[in-house]
């Protein structure tokens, strides 16, 4: 199989699997237990935390809490920060292209009485800092902008937004970094981010582990109740084996990020060329390295249901996806593509290809030739709008 769905999940690294198995076998005690075995588990947990902090320069181990994944991290960050700071204002800002775990959090907050501004994006999927600045009011308490978009790979100007918000004291800044860590450079402390989310299974780590950075002194209310684990922000017995293994996964991913970006960008360019050669297909998102992540290519086949393309590709052992995995079951047009192009046809026919470390020229050539073949086969079925 040719697995081209790395934005949805990544194959765990062999060393990650080994680490997880070993820790699981040896350190099953509850890290909150007072006895020696419990302490050992606690030690491992803290060691993992220290390792994580060291991967993000300028951050402190105490600022990292472990969650069950990106969705939970985004939920805690947004709902927790909004609720905790409600007294200071009721206006929130995000973008129209966020992941459902962010978008739906804001929708829920709207129902709770908050006012939310959803910033538009341009044809590259990129939000404008000027728009953001214009949207800020005295009532604004939280801004949440994803770093890399999960459907089209658009890179948002996080550093610039960070600079802007630094002048606005009291406006908290959340960044969803689930698709960016290990793929493009990340500078949590340097950007002046207050909250940052990442997920281990997007970097060849185990499922069920996420990172939530909560800058020191940041008031955030917990969503779950029932224990004082993870700075009283995320109770529940910590998944020690998966957390230790995820520290390893993040390390491997971040250490090889620059080299991976170069490799993937080459693949991305190759695939973009190949799509440009097929007149039925249209590439979605930007080209330049500063606005487009190296590991995602999104294109539309207007007039064709994307599921059909995905199933046809699977016949040729190619695994791709439509939209994000978190919303792929709905028949709705892609919210992201709608925001970028406003075209229903284009937004209902998007297909996403995302790369990983195992891909090289051979895999890409196969993908390109199969794409051409599938389009040829499907051509008679096109529905012209």
């Amino acid at each position, binding site marked *: 199989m040719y697995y081209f769905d790395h934005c949805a999940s990544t194959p765990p690294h062999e060393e990650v699997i080994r680490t997880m198995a070993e*820790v699981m076998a040896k350190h099953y005690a509850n890290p909150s237990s007072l006895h020696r075995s419990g302490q050992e588990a606690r030690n491992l947990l803290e060691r993992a935390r220290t390792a994580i902090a060291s991967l993000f320069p300028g951050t402190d181990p105490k600022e990292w809490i472990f969650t069950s994944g990106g969705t939970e991290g985004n939920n805690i960050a947004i709902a927790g920060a909004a609720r905790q700071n409600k007294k200071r204002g009721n206006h929130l800002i995000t973008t129209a292209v966020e992941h459902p775990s962010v978008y739906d959090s804001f929708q829920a907050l709207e129902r709770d009485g908050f006012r939310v501004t959803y910033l538009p994006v341009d044809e590259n999927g990129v939000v404008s800092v000027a728009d953001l600045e214009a949207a800020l009011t005295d009532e604004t308490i939280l801004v949440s902008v994803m770093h890399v978009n999960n459907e089209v790979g658009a890179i948002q100007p996080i550093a610039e937004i960070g600079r802007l918000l630094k002048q606005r004291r009291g406006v908290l800044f959340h960044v969803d970094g689930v698709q960016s860590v290990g793929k493009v450079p990340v500078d949590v402390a340097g950007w002046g981010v207050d909250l940052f989310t990442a997920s281990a299974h997007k970097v060849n780590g185990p499922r069920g582990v996420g990172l939530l950075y909560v800058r020191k002194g940041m008031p955030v209310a917990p969503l779950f109740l029932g224990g004082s684990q993870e700075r009283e922000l995320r109770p529940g017995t910590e998944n020690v084996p998966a957390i230790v293994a995820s520290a390893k996964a993040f390390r491997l991913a971040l250490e090889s990020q620059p080299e991976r970006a170069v490799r993937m960008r080459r693949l991305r360019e190759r695939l973009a060329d190949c799509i440009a050669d097929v007149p039925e297909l249209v590439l979605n998102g930007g080209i330049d390295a500063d606005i487009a992540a190296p590991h995602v290519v999104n294109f539309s086949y207007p007039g064709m249901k994307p599921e059909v393309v995905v199933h046809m590709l699977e016949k040729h052992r190619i695994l791709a996806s439509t939209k994000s995995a978190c919303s792929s079951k709905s028949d709705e047009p892609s919210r992201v593509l709608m925001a970028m192009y406003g075209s229903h046809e284009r937004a209902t026919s998007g297909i996403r290809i995302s790369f990983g470390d195992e891909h090289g020229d051979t895999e890409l050539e196969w993908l390109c030739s199969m794409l051409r073949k599938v389009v040829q086969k499907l051509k008679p079925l096109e529905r012209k709008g």
Partner: protein
Amino acid sequence: MNPDKIIVRFGEFTLKGKNRSKFDKKLEEQVRKAIRGNEKVELSSTYGRIYLTLNGEPYEEIAVKLKDIFGIVSISPIRTVESELETIRSAALEVMQSLPKQPSTFKVSARRVDKKFPHDSQEMNHLVGSHVLREMPGLQVNVREPEVELRVEIQPDGTHVFSSVIPTAGGYPYGTNGKAMLLLSGGIDSPVAGYLGMRQGLEIEAVHFHSYPYTSDKAKEKVIDLVRRLSHYSGAPIKLHLVSFTEIQTALAQAGHDPLIITLMRRSMLRIAEQLAERSGALGLVSGDSLGQVASQTLGSMNVIGRATELPLLRPLVTMDKNEITIIARQIGTFETSILPYEDCCTLFVPKSPSTNPNLSVVEKIEQRIEGLEAMIAEAVAGTELMIISPDIRNAVETAGEDSWF
């Protein structure tokens, strides 16, 4: 400004006459140790000062290392130039222009150590000041309360130009005022007491009493972490004596004088610490007592407890309130560890109504009636576990598990 040198200034011990060279030497040694990672830095000592020539090594990094060394009162990043008027003027302007925030007022304080230099201090104030004023419109001279004092020191081997004097830890070089045993509980106070003692030039060995298996290893880890933090300031490894107090505590608890148990425990602890001090050649005990804070720290209690030892009992925090102590604990980085909620041996046997005014003769009588107390104390001393803690030793948190997992 891109400083090319740092002036390191010594503290009050420069007044000490004959012993001075000992202090100077000790401090020079500590500075050398602190900058060991920055190989290009060159060190030269003069009367009451050390000059560090950076040779391209980063100023900020070295300043951080110097900041916590006891005995250094202040440091200044400086530009050193040839003692020639125009060169001095342009260096002065450069220093002023590179301030993080442009001030509205300043003054020049020139000092001519090298009397061969043609202009005296007064003239230099004017000559340098007028140049800066010409080049930086908006700036004014204020000789009484300037925002920035631009200093120009004309020395025989060059002129130092600088604008900031950064206060540092102060005190005496570590270990120049003898050695004492620090009674370290794991709470907020005793690490601060240790720090203040060390700042006054005391070499410290720490004593911690534990009640294993009633208290957990976490309490021990916590104390190790505290000692490690203190060793950052000593710049030298610190010995930690871990004393098992379980047996003595149990015996005291069974004596049937509940309100006096803390008094009795403290007295036994002091006796043990005293014996350990004798073994180590320490001439005093340091404790984190603060007057009135708890029952065992009333004057009456301090009297009865203190009589258990003949060594001087130093209480650097005695007149401080909790708030002041907490501020220092945060500054020196022990607070976060101190507040970790692990039982120490004293919290185990806290009586409902501890005596605030114990009677010495009653206490002594109770002690006489406890069978084998002396022997238990001797045994505790003999069974003391010794650890040597350095700032760079990794703690158990960092060493649990296998390195290959991370």
